[in-house]
């Protein structure tokens, strides 16, 4: 005959013993594990640029300037297009007049201060366009160096600037290896591309993605395996800019070559 004391003891033991495998079910919940592996965030904005598709029309620059109210004629821009012309002598000629805003109608290379360099067609080995924008780095040096924390990274990976808090010291401008930052000519604070955060957070595309007639620019969510951008990044040979700085940039390029600066 089991005593009451023994009964209580043993039932506690059984209950305890049962909870261990049951809690293991909870511990090894695959969905949770998957979430934890990817730090639990469901959204991380990334950008995909297909340089093969870019023709240097400059629609993206125009659209960006208008959308984000960066004065149209000011010689600064949140996004720009670079033209690369590699000649047979192995030299790389690069320019980006007005950030490529008006396209590249002049075949001569702009070498600054009103001078241009003529390159004959037969001397050219290859030529292409590379659109640039903020890389929304995973390890953003601009956020690190801001002395007052006026620039910060959102949970979905976009680096933003608080215009009411920036003191305008320019340390972030100096800290960015990609040269995407500048001082806003009207607000006199640090300014940069923010993937049109006001648009993407409302379910829209960025202004430059909308404006690109050739689909060279795409934005997506790297945490969503079914996102077409994610699929391209995961399955094709993509590259990033200036990886050696340890910034972990999140703008991926198709067709990037060693000449690209």
């Amino acid at each position: 005959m089991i005593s009451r004391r023994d009964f209580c003891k043993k039932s506690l033991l059984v209950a305890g013993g049962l909870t261990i495998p049951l809690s293991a079910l909870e511990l090894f919940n695959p969905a949770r594990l998957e979430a934890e592996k990817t730090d639990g965030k469901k959204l991380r904005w990334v950008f995909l640029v297909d340089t093969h598709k870019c023709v240097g029309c400059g629609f993206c620059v125009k659209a960006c300037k208008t959308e984000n109210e960066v004065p149209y004629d000011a010689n600064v821009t949140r996004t720009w297009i670079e033209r690369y012309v590699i000649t047979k002598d192995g030299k790389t000629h690069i320019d980006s007049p007005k950030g490529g805003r008006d396209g590249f109608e002049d075949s001569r290379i702009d070498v600054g201060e009103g001078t241009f360099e003529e390159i004959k067609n037969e001397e050219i080995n290859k030529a292409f366009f590379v659109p640039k924008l903020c890389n929304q780095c995973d390890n953003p040096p601009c956020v690190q160096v801001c002395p007052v924390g006026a620039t910060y990274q959102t949970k979905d990976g976009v680096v933003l600037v608080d215009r009411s808090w920036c003191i305008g010291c320019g340390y972030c401008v100096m800290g960015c290896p990609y040269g995407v930052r500048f001082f806003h000519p009207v607000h006199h604070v640090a300014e940069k591309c923010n993937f049109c955060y006001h648009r993407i957070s409302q379910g829209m595309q960025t202004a430059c993605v909308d404006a690109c007639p050739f689909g060279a620019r795409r934005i997506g969510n790297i945490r969503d395996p079914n996102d077409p951008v994610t699929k391209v990044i995961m399955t094709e040979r993509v590259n990033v800019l200036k990886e050696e700085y340890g910034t972990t940039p999140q703008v991926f390029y198709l067709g990037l070559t060693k000449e690209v600066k």
Partner: protein
Amino acid sequence: MVHGEAWTLKEFFTYPNEYIYWTIQIVMYPFMTGLVAGAFVLSSLYHVFGVTQLKGIARFSLVFSFALLPVAMLPLMLHLQQPQRGIEVMMTPHFTSAIAAFGIVFSTYGMIVASELWFVYRKHFVENALKLREIDDRNLSEHLWHLLYTVLSLGTTDISHEALEADERAVKKLAAAGIPVACFLHGYAGFIFGSVKANALWMTPLMPVIFICSAVVSGIALCILTYIITMEIRKFLAQRRHREHPELPSPDELKSAELHVVTMTTKYLVMFLVAAITLELLDLIFRGYTAMKSWDILRSVIYERDFVNIFVIQYGLGNLLPFIIFLTPGLTIRRALAGTSLVLLGVFMMRWNVVIGGQAFSSSLSGFMHYVLPVWPDSMETYKEGLMGALTVAIVPFCLFYLLNKVMPVFKDTH
């Protein structure tokens, strides 16, 4: 117009947003903090290490360091796009940034220098307060002086032998604590540059050490220079007054004292100069030897575009020539004056070549930028970030020193 466009000339490929954003004020900032730190280290050589030969200049350099202190902040304020928010660096510091430490380091250092000065001049404050208290019918200026000295004495009037000895001990402790803080203040200015990984010229762990050494050099040089100028003025005044007041030191006495102090101090100057140049050359040689990706463009900046600035003005006029001047036997006041002026020029050019030279090339490593110094301002921006703004910054410490000297006379024996 975009900020930076007024003074930037671009050549070959630079990113569209690249301009010379850090201009002459950012050259002035490390230059001024360097002078602050250097002047303090010079005064500490006497207070802490008991280098008695430097006694004559120790108090002088301490007061001068204090006069320079508020001015170290001035170029930053002139450079900020939103100067009214500058205080936020102190209020809401973001500690992953090197600049965020500014508030803490700067105020700690300020407090140390202020308290050290107080202990050095306490006797002077108390004596004056008591002297003025005895006057029954004080006129307005005497009344104000009395008020000032009473406030400065902070309510203590004990100037007994024991109390003064305790003061000396406190001075020694504060001076000892001040040396690392002064080095930190300036080393961290070097860290601000050295830690910018996006800039190939700036990024080196040697930067803070190079900055500290050249800071001490420039601080000592400026102290000698100002000391000579002040002594010349005193000699001139002594010539006129000596006839009426024979108890005052004669011009000849002043002259021999001056030469002695100057000769002793230049020895320390040369020592720190050797250290500074060694480190700078090490950095240059190392860059050339390792020849990383950025070396191609750095080489064309250092050996071609900035050749005159770096090798002729900085190393030639600013380092080599003063070496010859100081090491040739039989140093005279006039030669010391020329030597220290050249050393100051050399250190200024070193800051210039770091700050402006670091922006002389695009971070695409495919183009160059040239800084056209705005000489005559045509807007607030070209005033602030041009020659006139820099001159303003350079003049202010001397005005402050003049005022401080009224309250804390640097040549009067206190203890």
